[in-house]
């Protein structure tokens, strides 16, 4: 029985593993990417020569969790872009699975909400896979060190999705404030419930 269970576990594990992607961990160096913004111009991290780092947010139009955090993402950009940490928002959802996540719908959303940050379309889903993003919203705080972009924090924006005023742990803001003071963030990784990124059917 035990052998059977172990064997089954191996098979199932193998099955799951083939679906898993290489993903960044805290301390890893991020490779640049180039994705189409809602204004039809491509954006890459290298274009931000004076940035100290980035708040990379994997998000989307349709996930109720992502929607709850929309205004908080906007606030993060307002608070930190002038300090050298702009928000780069990326939607990787398969628009065939979720028509509300099409590029045209992203353009509408960015306009309606007046996003002050780029909202990029990861149509091929390669950037989400490169980062190892699984959820929306899923944040990666990266910081420049000797010209390299190093992952400093991965996870949630704060600890209360439903009500921003009740969030007493503002993970992303605290991580960046530490980085701005030349310190390492106290919390480098958190997890949160969220919608899974809608992957294309293989």
């Amino acid at each position, binding site marked *: 029985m035990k052998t059977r*269970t172990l064997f089954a576990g191996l098979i199932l594990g193998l099955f799951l593993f083939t679906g898993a992607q290489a993903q960044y961990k805290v301390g890893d160096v991020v490779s640049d990417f180039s994705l189409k913004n809602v204004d039809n111009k491509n954006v890459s991290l290298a274009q931000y020569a004076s940035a100290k780092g980035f708040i990379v947010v994997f998000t989307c139009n349709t996930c109720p969790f992502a929607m709850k955090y929309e205004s908080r993402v906007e606030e993060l950009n307002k608070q930190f872009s002038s300090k050298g940490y702009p928000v780069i928002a990326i939607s990787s959802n398969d628009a065939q699975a979720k028509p509300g996540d099409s590029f045209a719908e992203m353009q509408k959303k960015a306009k309606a909400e007046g996003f002050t940050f780029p909202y990029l379309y990861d149509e091929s889903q390669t950037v989400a896979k490169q980062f190892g993003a699984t959820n929306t919203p899923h944040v990666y705080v990266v910081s420049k060190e000797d010209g390299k972009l190093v992952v400093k924090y991965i996870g949630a924006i704060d*600890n209360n999705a439903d009500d921003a005023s009740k969030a007493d742990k503002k993970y992303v803001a605290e991580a960046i404030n530490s980085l701005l003071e030349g310190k390492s963030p106290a919390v480098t990784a958190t997890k949160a419930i969220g919608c*899974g*990124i809608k992957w294309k059917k293989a």
Partner: protein
Amino acid sequence: MKAFFIVCIVFFGSASVIQAQEIRKISKSELSEILKNPSDKLHVVNFWATWCGPCVKELPDFQKVVNAADNQKVDFLFISLDFPSDAEKKLVPFLKKNNYTFSVCLMTETDYNAWIDEVDQAWQGNIPATLFFNKARNVHHFVGEPMDKPQLVKTIQTLL
């Protein structure tokens, strides 16, 4: 601990009769107890929410499997991650409308980082997610993606 589990099951087992008026709310510590259940059964714990499209989509298949399962050997629990403020206006009507008879609890601890790792270290918090475990036989298997009926049946058969 066992008593709680039985209460949960009895309560929701009769839910179809009493037309689920209330959802059992669980805290972080109650979830910990559920996850430590030592009984020699395969415990299937599904994490879902009414706002989660793929979760809602897989529930009819789960209900079929619940109906056909030997409850001496397999135990199901569906933990809703709906926002607690949505319980009455979304969760209860949803369960009623779909005539779901499986056991549902509502997670009230929304500081997710405080408990996600207890379910499975590899889980990033995306739902649907389903945990299969039997502490008595050292079985722990986590699926962090939607499952259809054949996958679910096969997984249960393999782990029993």
